[in-house]
């Protein structure tokens, strides 16, 4: 089949067909500059403030799903066969306020009003999923939305009250779900899409095999999944990312499958796609999960991307290394399997060659007699980058530590195992003394940097203390040893 040279998507109630899309064009600029839909605001252009929140509906294997995303770093080219819903689409006939809007007005949820459209969109997405959320659920939905005026209390009250002003069943997007599904289905023709604006190019492969072919043909291309990192190269560093190859639309690459040998996570699976399966298999990740970015970024960002970008402060690598996860790297028709810890060679250098891509992540099935823990320490609890990330996987049998896999982020130029500390633990009794003794060896494993997130001294102190926390959390104490979310 010939490639298509245009993307086609729904913007509110209008079908948009356009070929003039460059590699780094953002949805936000398209909305504000081309369409004059100025209700969506730019606050930071890096996916942290949420003023640009819109909903993107896409057909997944589970049907049409609307998710809040950051328009500022969402690449316009990735919108093929999606339904973009902006704040302008919420009010009913004659300007009748949507229940979320009505609740915000009644509860004094806006002051300066600049963050408000984004907050309304996040609360709208929450309400579609959960009409009567509790405060913790609301806080979680708003992890990606900053408000500088209200102190949030009126917004939380509004979110609690939305259900008084209407029910999701009466909501326009829900009522039109079947029609929109049909329209989006009609837009998906299984063809590769090649977009061009001037010299700037974007390619949406037809399927995974096509992705492999495209990358072989364009080994220097920028591969983009959720654009939660690459988006900033565009908006902050003004980097030319052309040609860009997108993979977020490939359903087959977004699969998360649980089998007897463990979990298989497609490289295109977002955090939101992966959450249920991963946290069911490894319940210790549940609390950790709630501290990864904000909702919008969890809907866009992928675990595969978090590995591939090679950051020493990514949330997932330490967790995956501790669990003994592996990745499948694909180059054309060739595949190789690699323990994740071997992927990270040094700062800025990973074991991957041009044209190669991460196809899958494999996690082993949960094993008996394991003590698992995953901790993220950051300046602000939610939507922050870790100062220290630590993951523990201790095999304890009959009161003795058989093996230990401990990996840390934020402590070196790569996510890295605490080899000296692990060695001390092997064969020791499961005791506070053993963990404290192992922690004392961390200075041999790591020489952390000092930066704006934390000093080297703090990083090392916290990392040591987390060894005590692992023990105390599993010591059956009556008093909690950690601040719970709710």
């Amino acid at each position, binding site marked *: 089949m010939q490639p298509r040279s245009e993307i086609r998507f729904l913007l509110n109630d209008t079908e948009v067909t356009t070929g003039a899309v460059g590699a780094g064009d953002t949805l936000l600029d398209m909305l504000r500059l081309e369409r*004059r839909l*100025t*209700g*969506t*605001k730019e*606050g930071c252009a890096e996916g*942290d*403030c949420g003023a640009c929140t819109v909903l993107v509906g896409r057909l997944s294997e589970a049907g049409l799903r609307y998710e809040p995303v950051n328009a500022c770093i969402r690449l316009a080219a990735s919108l093929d066969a999606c339904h973009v819903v*902006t704040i*302008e689409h919420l*009010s009913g006939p004659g300007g009748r*306020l949507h229940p979320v*809007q009505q609740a915000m*007005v009644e509860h*004094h949820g*806006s*002051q*300066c*009003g*600049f*963050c408000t*459209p984004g907050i*309304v969109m996040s609360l709208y997405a929450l309400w579609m999923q959960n009409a009567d959320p509790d*405060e913790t659920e609301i*806080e979680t939905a*708003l*992890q990606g*939305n*900053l408000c*500088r*005026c*209200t*102190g*949030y209390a*009126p*917004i*939380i009250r509004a979110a609690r009250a939305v259900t008084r002003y209407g029910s999701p069943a009466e909501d326009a997007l829900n009522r039109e779900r079947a029609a929109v599904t049909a329209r989006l289905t009609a837009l998906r023709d299984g063809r590769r899409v090649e977009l061009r604006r001037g010299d700037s190019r974007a390619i949406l492969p037809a399927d995974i095999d096509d992705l492999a072919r495209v990358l072989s043909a364009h080994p220097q291309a920028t591969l983009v999944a959720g654009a939660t990192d690459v988006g900033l190269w565009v908006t*902050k560093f003004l980097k030319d990312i052309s040609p860009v190859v997108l993979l977020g639309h490939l359903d087959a690459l977004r699969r998360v499958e649980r089998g007897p040998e463990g979990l298989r996570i497609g490289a295109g699976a977002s955090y939101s796609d992966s959450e249920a399966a991963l946290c069911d298999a490894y319940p210790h990740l549940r609390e950790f999960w709630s501290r990864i970015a904000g909702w919008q970024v969890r809907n866009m960002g992928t675990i595969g991307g978090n590995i591939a970008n090679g950051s020493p402060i990514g949330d997932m690598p330490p967790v995956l290394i501790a669990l003994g996860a592996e990745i499948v790297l694909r180059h054309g028709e060739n595949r190789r399997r690699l323990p994740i810890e071997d992927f990270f060679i040094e700062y800025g250098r990973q074991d991957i060659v041009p044209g190669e891509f991460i196809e899958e992540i494999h996690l082993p099935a949960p094993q008996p007699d394991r003590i698992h823990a995953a901790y993220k*320490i*950051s*300046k*602000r*609890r*939610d939507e922050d980058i870790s100062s220290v990330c630590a993951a523990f996987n201790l095999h304890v049998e009959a009161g003795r530590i058989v093996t230990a896999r401990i990996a840390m982020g934020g402590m070196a130029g790569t996510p890295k195992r605490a080899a000296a500390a692990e060695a001390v633990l092997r064969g020791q009794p499961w005791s506070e003394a053993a963990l404290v003794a192992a922690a004392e060896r961390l200075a041999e494993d790591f020489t952390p940097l000092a*930066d*704006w997130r*934390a000093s080297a*001294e703090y990083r090392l*102190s*916290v990392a040591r*203390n*987390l060894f*005590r*926390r692992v023990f*105390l959390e599993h010591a059956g*104490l009556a*008093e909690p*040893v950690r*601040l719970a*979310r709710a």
Partner: protein
Amino acid sequence: MKDFTEETALTQTDPRHDSAVKHVTGRAEYADDIPEPVGTLHAYLGLSTRAHARIRAIDLTRVRGAAGVVGVLSAADIPGINDVSPTGRDDEAIFATDKVEFWGQPIFAVVAESRDAARRAARLAEIDYEDLPPLLDIDAARAAGDGYVTPPLTLERGEPGPALAAAPHRIRGRMRVGGQDHMYLEGHIAFALPGEDDDVLVHSSTQHPSEAQHMVARVLGIRSNDVTVNVRRMGGGFGGKETQMNLFCAVAALAAKRWNRPVKLRPDRDDDMQATGKRHDFVIDYDVGFDETGRITALDGEFAARCGFSSDLSGPVTDRALFHADNAYFYPNVRLRSHPLRTNTVSNTAFRGFGGPQGVIAAERIIEEIAYSLGKDTLEVRRANFYGQPGDGRDLTPYHQSVEDNVIGRIVDELEASSDYQARRAAVLAHNARGGVIRRGIALTPVKFGISFTATWYNQAGALVHVYNDGSIHLNHGGTEMGQGLNTKIAQIVAEAFGVEFGRVKITRTTTEKVPNTSATAASSGSDLNGMAALDACQQIKARLVDFAAERWGVAPEAIRFEGGRVHVGDTTMRFEELIGAAYMARVQLSAAGFYKTPKIHWDRAAGKGRPFYYFAYGASVSEVSIDTLTGEYRVERTDILHDVGRSLNAELDIGQVGGAFVQGMGWLTTEELWWDKAGQLRTHAPSTYKIPLASDRPRVFNVALADWSENREPTIKRSKAVGEPPFMLGISVFEALSMAVASVADYRVCPRLDAPATPERVLMAVERLRGARA
């Protein structure tokens, strides 16, 4: 025609924010949303990449040659004066010329067909620097003795030297208090449209349109009557758009006149944060004497502030730090000195509280020191030091103003009871006594905040009210709307004055064309000043209406009442618009300009004496926190606030201000950390690295109440009190509760001396330091 009396969806009492519906639908128009006329150009600033350097050469060849570029502007292109110093000190160039004095200082602007093109081009400048040693912080500036950006201030009363020497107890200490970025969600922006002759119109997001107007005229070498500045609303200001927008307005206007095309200038968030000023950080040295009861006998305080490369508002900001270094406490003998230090960092500026919070937190640290050294509850020490009443010998501030309206005792007593402070404190102590990983802390902190601009001439305002002959009312005043609900409050005042529905009053954008020579919407003064000016305008019109009606219907003026959208003239009742129609036909003037100036205030800075404040606003908060002593992470479990706004103009808006200010104050003292690298570049310059509170950081239980019995003893607008800034300092209760939780690891015998912000790192390091001290 609209029937006004049916438009009563917004109730007369506590109407919602007038823009609320526009906010939630995305229809509220901000400066960047204004449709751009054909031919609009975009400017972008080229910023210094050195903290301190001589400029050997500026080569903009590649900038000029970049795609889409129309031209560049640097200092030589300024027809007027290359300076936007708001206090007339001529120390703040728009474009650096021979020297750069901070990382992020504008050197030139590039103007292009699109913002993207201008941004890309701005990065192509080749600037040859000769590096000079930078003074980046307070310690370096003090060590270098490089001097002050503005004259320091001393406040003195009594005999602090001898009194300290004679004090039964004496503690000397030092506290570092970090700065704060405003992080308004809408960044700086100016959109200038050229007009005929020298005219230029600037749409902007400034808290001070008159100053922007004045600065544009000064920079362009034209007159104020050539320049119009419009502000419909801001997406947050918090002081950050008081003076800092002047540069953006001036550059946009300069480019608009130069190319005779509309020009918009909107920096990216990173540039906004690197190129514009923030709250001043301070190093405070204190030397306090006190007796066994914890009562302070003498205090000597040195307040050193990082001001940045120019004065901006550092003079009044550091002055206000001294004015508030007493918080709610009487110091029998006191000497306070400010040190406004010049540094090679961005010029710090106004931020909610304007130096006051830095003074207040010093007072609260001193209370902590005394309490921990005597083994007392901090609340007991606070009470022992509260100001008294006039005539009891404990009412004089360090600036010799008598505190005449002190209600802090009642507020604290009521809050102590309503928050169940004593029982909860006992529970916290019992919890900590069990010695677990999670420790708790609770603190009740008061605030007393002086209201008025200390620049006395700023305490004036104007308003313009028209009643059209259909009975509709047009309101304009000198204040600006940044989310605080100022327009709503003033419309309420106008509606009430005429006895009509709130919805009848049309609130219009602030513009220098309608009300001239306005003051910044700052110092919490917006409704105090502009509300009175609007009321004055209404009263003028009303007096004419009364005269007219008394004559027409032959009744005494006292027999005329305006209420419920109707006018009662003796036994005759008519709709408001009927009276207006009749008055119009009788040629009664239905428009008035109102004016107000705050009475009673005066200030002699050289002598350090006077009455800088018309009155004080009070409040108190109790916060309870939990900390994790393994990581330093924390959580605010509960906060209770009782705040004094006098007789509230709009309780819902006031509660919104109190809750929002508290969380912003808490952010300043917890997770908001500004971090410069060794080269002097700010590395926390966007929300990815600079962490303001999120919804999940707010107190889990959050009770905010207004002191409903309070009324201003001075005849302010409806006996209300200002609300913008005072509650910001209620966030200090979180800081002190964290401190108490830390202190628990050393049995409360050592003052933890937390520096601000108390990030998880500082909390953990303090825990480990105190554990070491105990061992």
